[in-house]
């Protein structure tokens, strides 16, 4: 059994895995019960499993959990809650920017990373940042509006 020490959503978590190469996605979902991060392809092609590692958006389905030891991992659950959504999530709700919602967490995390490095992105930058996040229901236009809405909100505002 390999022991892994992770820092997830601000807390220290220890898990044991028979396979030292277990991907972060499976640790989050199955060991830690953080099911907001979704399995979409296992190939880093769709973005449904996107989380933040050290502030960067990464595909947890192809990221070995051990490779992120010592770094801050943030999942969708680490932002806000249904009662207290963070400003980006509140913008998604205001724009009703999801249909089935399966891909949504990955988009929120990708957008979060974008807004951290580019406070006021252009629409073009939002589209480019989300180019690797696939949506099949067709919520794209609303997602773009939601990210731009969050970007235009006053800093620290809700």
């Amino acid at each position, binding site marked *: 059994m390999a022991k892994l020490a992770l820092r997830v959503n601000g807390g220290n978590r220890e898990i044991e895995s028979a396979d030292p190469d277990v991907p972060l996605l*499976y640790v989050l979902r199955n060991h830690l019960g953080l099911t907001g991060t979704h399995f979409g392809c296992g190939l880093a092609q*769709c973005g449904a499993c996107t989380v933040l590692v050290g502030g960067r958006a990464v595909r947890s389905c192809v990221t070995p959990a051990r490779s992120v030891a010592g770094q801050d991992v943030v999942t969708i659950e680490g932002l806000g809650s249904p009662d207290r959504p963070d400003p980006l*999530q509140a913008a998604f709700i205001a724009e009703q920017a999801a249909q089935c*919602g*399966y891909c949504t967490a990955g988009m929120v995390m990708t957008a979060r990373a974008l807004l951290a490095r580019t406070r006021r992105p252009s629409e073009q930058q939002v589209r480019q940042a989300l180019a690797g996040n*696939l949506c099949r229901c067709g*919520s794209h*236009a609303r997602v773009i509006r939601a990210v731009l809405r969050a970007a235009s909100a006053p800093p620290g505002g809700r």
Partner: protein
Amino acid sequence: MAALSISRRSFLAAGGVLVVGLGLDGVGRASAQTVAGADRFLGKSLAPDAVDSFLAVHADGSVTLFVGKVDIGTGGRIAMRQIVGEELDVPLERIAMIEGDTALTPNQGATAGSYGIARGGTQLRQAAATARQALLAQAAQRLGRPAGDLQIVDGVVRAKDGTGAVTYGELIGDRAFNLKVDGGAPLKAPQSFRFIGKSLPRPDLPAKVTGRHRYLHDLTLPSMLHARVIRPPAHGATLVSVDESSVAAIGSARVVRIQNFLAVVAEREWDAVRAARALQCKWTAGTGLPDSTKEFDSMRASRVVRDQEIAKRGDLSALSAPAPGMRALAASYRWPIQTHGSIGPSCGVADVRADRATVWSSSQNTHGFQTTCARLLGLERDRVRVIYLDGAGSYGPNGADDAAAEAALLSKTLGKPVRVQWTRQEEHGLDPKGPAQLLELRAAVDADGEVAAWETQAWLPIATANLPNIPLLSLDAAGIPQTPGRSTGLIYQNVDPPYTMPNVNAVVHWIPDAPLRTSAIRAPGKVANTFAVESFVDEIAALARVDPVEFRLRRLTNPRGLEVLRRLTARMGWQPRPSPRPVDPKAAVLTGRGIAYIHYKHEETLVAMGMEVAVERATGRIRVTRVVCAQDCGLMINPDCVQSQLEGNIIQTLSRTLHEEIVYDRNGVTTVDWASYPILTFPEVPALEFELIQRLDQPPLGVGEAASTPVPAALGNAVFDATGVRLRTVPFRADRVKAALARS
């Protein structure tokens, strides 16, 4: 967004928390439900004509809805509440909703055909109106006042003069209505609408956006095993041998084999993944699929099971013997095999006991699947409970039923709950596909530009009558009998033009085979059929040198159809002229505009769609810059949810038209991921504009499909307008467009 905010409490009731209760003291009482305490309703009426089947009013004045139609991301969860809140006069935050649970919800048929609100919601509305009528009568008796002296406000029946009041809870509180749905119960008049027609926010979004929404994929049960199914490497291959020792090193992993059905299970999901990768087994050679490059030739040359006349009127002689001055036009349109492409591969969870079973599925047809599952498990139908939980969006039957059946089979074998998770490769490779379609059109056009005769011939794979379910992979593999056949949806509709043309022949040649397993895919058949019909109309208009809008307006009598076309062209700022526009031979980017029109199934929603495109001559790449959609779907319960569906229709169908084609070789599908089967991405999404016509006095029509259908023709017509090149084969990939431009 409108003002109503759904409270935390009702959000929880709406699906925020997945309550897993395992009190195993009754039939099927082992449920994960999206509404806490849902199992207290077990034993309630499920009769399709009983008020109690659809709703219950509780002592505290809250209401629970039981809805056979499921919300696959479409907004049903708010729209159904709006409908019932309106008719009952109950605030929406007091309404909980249970969906697609065979033990609790009436069988309203599959969530398909754009009938969720149009039929399912209408049934619910009439049930609520019946309940209101009964409650008003009871209140009249209780208060000793004629019903005409009473009014209902927020679930309280009051005397208008303020002399008495009684709550719904006091009147009926958790007791059955014992009433049949009264088709004559009066409906709320539009001028009194409080909820219907408002763009209220969906109750499931806060949880979806914050990662708290529990999907089927997130369901865990005590002692549940994770499974992966091992697929044959070639179509039709059978299992020769399995080396179980190849997974011995992986903790809890074990192998399950039932004839040619092979799976690995493990306590940890990742162990199941590793075991699936490590397992060594031998398969026979496959039986071989036909040559995919000859697919359309094979369809054209196929034996025909029977011909179905869709439309036949007038004198068709001009087709074979055009009069002097007439011009003949013929064209062939091809639509490829496509996948549903759900972002989350299918999943199923089952807990099968000796005498009963519970299956959790994202099936769009839980009641239909209940029958299949009972047969598969050898149980009576009422011993099997199928509970809908949200999966990744589905647009027709994807792999959900397969995954659930596989979970049931494994749970029965192992005596423990089992979760089956498909891989991306399985979803792309094995989900039942939208079939290929071949349409050949001919017309004779006289000197005045009139259509002297029109003919559509379509070659389509025949569906099997009364098929209980799409044939499932695991049953064949495990040697369990099932009804063979094919399901496709009503793919023959809209092969004939929606215009007044005196001489029309439209026939479907039903062919016996399709190379890959099929099922209904969003707006089944009608996307390709409308592509052919509305492109060909455009060809005729171009031949006649008539503006394509003008050409259609002249041949349209339906006033609602005329209105969507006029609203569209006004919004677009459409300048009448024939297509194509004069092409500048030196321009690197060519721009144009196109339209298409549909009267869905010739009797439902009406859509006019316009597009503006830019085509790069050097690369053949098409950039869609603007889409305008005008729609009349009758009464819109929630206009924002309607628009959301239209956005989905447009973006998904643009993706299907520009990019998507399933390719296979002798062994199976080769486009098994998002690299080999790309879909539309964020940078490609055009500006979308809508003209939605609200008709408060009309019944609601479907919105989940209709606006898909004009997309390919509107796009192809715009490309023709820009370039003079007619695209008749989907997808409009850049290499194909570039080659067509080079030939022009």
